[in-house]
């Protein structure tokens, strides 16, 4: 018994199998997490090692080069970059996407082991870090307080950071920017000298006074007591009473030479939210945790935490990494719903029967839900790619059901019993339905096999569409005939309302059919005109629009955050940065009224703040984070607002480097073009890079251009003269530590209060640390106890520190990073850059490469082009075996170039660039444009087999197949329309996909409906003539 008859005869089993699918699907839908993009492993490993005392150039030759040579041969390595700066060498190994990072780490470790013996003495063993995009912060909070401001750091640490870190999936919670308490002992150097004391003596005396000593046990009578000396300070003021020694019979107390200040650290990160002092809380997730779920957990925990906080402490959300994801996925859900309704409407209009419509659209939720089972089972997420796949599939899943239902209806109308009509009607088209699904699988299954970034992105798309296709075909061959046999009735009587509504539609469709058959009648007799005309259209569009085609990598999505990192000249005092921060934030708040929350943080980060230390920080670096609200709530896009911020920053000549970004990390932000200038000489590469920077900035294509290399930065060095040191009986370590104790202080003891430790820092009072003279007057005691001033030991000299040496693939380079301006495509920016490079005289020893997003885009386009060729071959092969002929599929393939014509026209009219999603659209088109051709040629062949002439068969087939072709094409095109015109949040990402498929399919259908019969006639006539000759 055939599967069709089995399905029809066992309606209960058939129904329940599909109900089971739906139940699993709904279960999966509830349990699948959402994310922005498919998850992928990090592909970067960092190797860090240090060589104390070596400068950048020494590090480069003695450490970095050796490590680079060793690591260069690691398998699957894509890029090897390095940074050599004073004391430190940092190598970054970027692997091909999809590489098993554990294995790569082991390989790296092996290579490092091999090279360890060649490293200079004193180099620390290289440490391997696995860095991942997951380590990026997912959430930024800001806390403000009024009365509790002084204790904010402690409150946040104890009551916010600790409980938040316990939330499942949270990696680290770092608090910065709030004042950190410190007990400061400020010494007066003159008094120290008078009493013969030094900073380190005082520091060690404090440590000696501030101790609790366990002192054993004592037995008294029948009891054993423990003994303790409990002499830790219970109040900072006790410090003042410490006895430092005695001079001339007088006791010297600490209060005689120093003052004790219980306050906050002198140099620390300061954070301001909307102008008032605040703390910044940054939450990072654990690798592999789901952003949305983690943030959900954090928010739930926060609600509880906020209740327990002092009433004046306010916690404000600066950045919520989940919001954008949730809104994007919601707007995709909306798109899917609209698509579903549109497709349903199209089917209803064509069939004029709600029962048939129901049978057909039933396959949509069924297939979609079944594919969700895959997502859930493989631990994937609902993301832009998987949801787009669902949306794409809606228009296509109904095709099989339509074909089956149409044929069953034909059988019914000839008087067959419903059951028999269902079985035979399905059996007749079964093979061609399976064949057309196979062509679709030829397109989508290869997508699951590509490697690299494209592979990560499109694996899910490939699987989802393939699964949907398979499920919908199965449903079309079992469930649909079963439902048809139950619900469809031959020649149903229709009501008046029905006739009023559908008679005109029917008439209209008949008219189109009629007109179309006339056109075909003309076309098959004027084959040359048609073929050359079509060729002409193709060439014309290609010539006119092809060269102007803009390409990009990822579309620039509107985001709810804008961030800026502003660097002032190295060594700018924190007070100056604070002042600038106030002015800049004031101006931003004034010019960007969309700002909801503005957080500005600057200053040297604490050493225990992981996140802050991963980013560059210092007194001269100001980082600004703005929350500008959801795209729907404002007129200007985040890119426009970023431009406003850039314009503001341009007004400040003191800013050395400013990097303004909108959006989160990675995809979705503005595209970048990296021009890499390779060359050994600093001067030459600097000069060329600066020239390129200036020229790029002058073009409208770039909104911001940054150089990767820092400048030579000034610093003061205490330069000791060894002879002078020896004369005074000192060595450089003793002198050096005295110098550093005076200036940055010495911490040897902690003040304990309520279980927390605060450093006790002894140093010169601030008024004695203001000038070079002050530094020269610092006193160090030699072994004889004689005071010696620094100026007697050497000079304070001003020097320049060379910048970090950056290398990539074992060559020195400087990168000129250009951020592509708003509304400019990546390809335009690259062209502009190329033009500038060509116009710039470049010394022959330098070489210039354009990298960045452009390089990634080129690689991906290359991958996808190979894939396209492969897919075309596969599709051809499947069709050839279906028709058992080489000629027919060749004729059908003529519809492919016109898909490209449509894509070009579509991108041109909508002013969009061809990006990754557009390429996916083209790939999808390969599968769907041939479907119409298959239907047309299949029926033409059938007509010829029934005895018609070639021309007659072409015309008959064209007329009778027009309606199903129009119907399946319209469901696909209109099904894509909501994607193409979507205005929802995040729609920038999938709009190009909708546009390419809509236009490609429409234009190709229009042209091929006329061209294919003509081309077929040419080939078939020739074949016939050949066959006749042989006879």
């Amino acid at each position, binding site marked *: 018994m055939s599967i069709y008859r089995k399905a029809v005869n066992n309606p209960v089993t058939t129904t329940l199998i599909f109900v089971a699918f739906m139940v699993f699907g709904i279960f999966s839908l509830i349990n699948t997490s959402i994310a922005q993009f498919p998850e992928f492993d990090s592909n970067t490993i960092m190797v860090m090692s240090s060589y104390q005392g070596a400068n950048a150039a020494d590090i480069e030759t003695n450490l970095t080069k050796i490590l680079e040579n060793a690591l260069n041969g690691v398998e699957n390595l894509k890029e090897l970059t390095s940074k050599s700066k004073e004391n430190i060498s940092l190598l970054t190994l970027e692997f091909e996407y999809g590489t098993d990072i554990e294995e790569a780490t082991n390989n790296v470790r092996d290579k490092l082991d091999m090279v360890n013996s060649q490293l200079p003495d004193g180099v620390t063993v290289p440490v391997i870090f696995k860095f991942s995009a997951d380590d990026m912060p997912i959430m930024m909070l800001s806390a403000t307080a009024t009365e509790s401001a002084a204790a904010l750091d402690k409150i946040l640490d104890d009551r916010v950071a600790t409980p938040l870190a316990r939330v499942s999936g949270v990696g680290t919670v770092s608090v910065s920017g709030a004042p950190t308490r410190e007990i400061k002992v400020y010494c007066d150097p003159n008094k120290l000298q008078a009493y013969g004391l030094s900073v380190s003596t005082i520091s060690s005396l404090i440590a000696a006074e501030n101790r609790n000593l366990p002192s054993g046990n004592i037995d008294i009578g029948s009891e054993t007591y423990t003994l303790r000396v409990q002499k830790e300070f219970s109040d900072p003021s006790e410090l003042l009473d410490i006895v430092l020694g005695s001079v001339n019979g007088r006791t010297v107390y600490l209060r005689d030479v120093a003052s004790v200040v219980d306050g906050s650290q002198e140099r620390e990160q300061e954070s301001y939210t909307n102008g008032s002092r605040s703390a910044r809380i940054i939450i990072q997730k654990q690798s592999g945790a789901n952003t949305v779920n983690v943030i959900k957990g954090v928010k739930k925990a926060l609600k509880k935490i906020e209740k327990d906080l002092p009433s004046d402490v306010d916690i404000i959300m600066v950045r919520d990494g989940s919001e954008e994801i949730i809104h994007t996925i919601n707007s995709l859900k909306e798109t899917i719903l609209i698509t579903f309704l549109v497709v349903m409407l199209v089917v209803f209009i064509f069939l004029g029967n709600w029962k048939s419509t129901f049978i057909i659209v039933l396959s949509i939720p069924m297939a979609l839900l079944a594919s969700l089972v895959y997502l859930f089972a493989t631990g994937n997420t609902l993301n832009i790619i998987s949801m787009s796949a669902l949306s794409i599939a809606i228009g296509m899943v109904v095709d099989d059901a339509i074909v089956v239902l149409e044929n069953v209806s034909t*059988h019914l109308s000839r008087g067959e019993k419903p059951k028999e009509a269902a079985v035979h009607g399905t059996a007749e088209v079964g093979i061609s339905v399976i064949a057309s699904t196979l062509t679709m699988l030829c397109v989508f299954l290869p997508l699951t096999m590509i490697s690299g970034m494209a592979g990560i992105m499109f694996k899910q798309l490939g699987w989802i569409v393939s699964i949907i296709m398979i499920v919908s075909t199965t449903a079309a061959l079992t469930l649909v005939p079963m439902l048809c046999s139950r619900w469809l009735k031959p020649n149903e009587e229709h009501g008046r309302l029905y006739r009023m509504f559908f008679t005109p539609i029917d008439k209209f469709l008949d008219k189109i059919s009629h007109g179309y058959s006339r056109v075909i009648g003309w076309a098959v007799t004027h084959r040359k005109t048609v073929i050359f005309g079509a060729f002409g259209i193709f060439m014309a569009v290609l010539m006119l629009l092809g060269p102007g085609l803009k390409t990009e990598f990822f579309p620039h999505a509107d985001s709810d955050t804008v961030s800026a990192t502003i660097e002032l000249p190295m060594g700018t005092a924190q007070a100056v940065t604070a002042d600038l921060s106030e002015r800049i934030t004031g101006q931003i708040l004034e010019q960007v009224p969309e700002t909801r929350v503005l957080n500005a943080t600057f200053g040297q980060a604490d050493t225990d703040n992981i996140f802050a230390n991963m980013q560059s920080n210092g007194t001269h670096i100001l980082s600004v984070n703005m929350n500008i609200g959801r795209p729907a709530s404002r007129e200007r896009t985040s890119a426009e607002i970023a431009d406003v911020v850039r314009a503001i920053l341009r007004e400040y000549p003191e800013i050395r480097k400013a990097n303004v970004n909108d959006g989160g990390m990675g995809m979705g932000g503005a595209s970048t073009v990296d021009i890499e200038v390779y060359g050994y000489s600093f001067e030459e590469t600097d000069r060329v890079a600066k020239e390129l920077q200036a020229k790029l900035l002058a073009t409208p294509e770039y909104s911001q251009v940054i150089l990767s290399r820092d400048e030579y930065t000034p610093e003061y060095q205490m330069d000791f003269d060894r002879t002078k040191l020896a004369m005074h009986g000192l060595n450089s370590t003793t002198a050096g530590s005295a110098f550093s104790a005076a200036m940055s202080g010495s911490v040897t003891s902690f003040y304990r209060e309520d279980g927390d430790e605060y450093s006790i820092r002894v140093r010169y009072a601030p008024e004695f640390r203001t000038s070079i003279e002050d530094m020269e007057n610092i006193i160090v005691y030699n072994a004889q106890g004689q005071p010696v001033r620094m100026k007697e030991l050497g000079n304070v000299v001003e020097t320049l520190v060379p910048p970090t040496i950056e290398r990539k693939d074992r060559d020195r380079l400087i990168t000129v990073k250009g951020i592509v301006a708003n509304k400019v495509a990546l390809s335009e920016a690259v062209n502009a850059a190329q033009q500038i490079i060509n116009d710039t005289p470049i010394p022959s020893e330098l070489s210039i490469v354009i990298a960045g997003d452009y390089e990634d885009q080129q690689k991906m386009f290359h991958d996808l082009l190979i894939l396209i060729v492969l897919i075309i071959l596969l599709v051809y092969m499947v069709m050839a075996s279906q028709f058992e002929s080489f000629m027919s599929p060749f004729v059908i393939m003529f519809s492919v170039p016109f898909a490209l014509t449509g894509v070009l026209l579509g991108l041109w009219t909508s002013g969009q660039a061809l990006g990754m999603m557009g390429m996916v659209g083209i790939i999808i088109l390969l599968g769907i444009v041939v479907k119409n051709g298959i239907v047309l040629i299949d029926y033409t062949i059938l007509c010829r*087999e029934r005895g018609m002439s070639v021309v007659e068969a072409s015309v008959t087939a064209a007329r009778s197949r027009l309606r199903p072709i129009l119907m399946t094409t319209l469901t696909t095109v209109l099904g894509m329309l909501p994607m193409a015109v979507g205005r929802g949040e995040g729609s920038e990402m999938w709009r190009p996909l909708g546009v390419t498929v809509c236009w490609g399919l429409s234009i190709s259908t229009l042209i091929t409906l006329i061209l294919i019969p003509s081309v077929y006639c040419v080939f078939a006539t020739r074949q016939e003539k050949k066959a006749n000759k042989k006879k």
Partner: protein
Amino acid sequence: MKALFIAYNQAFNEEIAEILEKNGQRGFTRWTDIQGRGSVDGTPHMGSHAWPEMSHAILSCVEDDKVEPIMAQLKEADMAAKDLGLRAFVWNVEMFY
């Protein structure tokens, strides 16, 4: 005793056997999925790409008095769905055991 040969579209399927049964005719021999073509008009039933439909056929030996009503009902079934195709032929049975 008459031999009744009925060639019909596969879509009639059980319907024909049911007609025989209704008329008290139990015995029959049936061939399924066979090819055939009408002499005058109608679509051929060849099971091919061009003519995908197929025929079934029944040979049944019936009592003389049952031939008339069976033939009438077969004709009725044919008329109800003319496009499907059903033909019945009757000839004498010379001998049987």
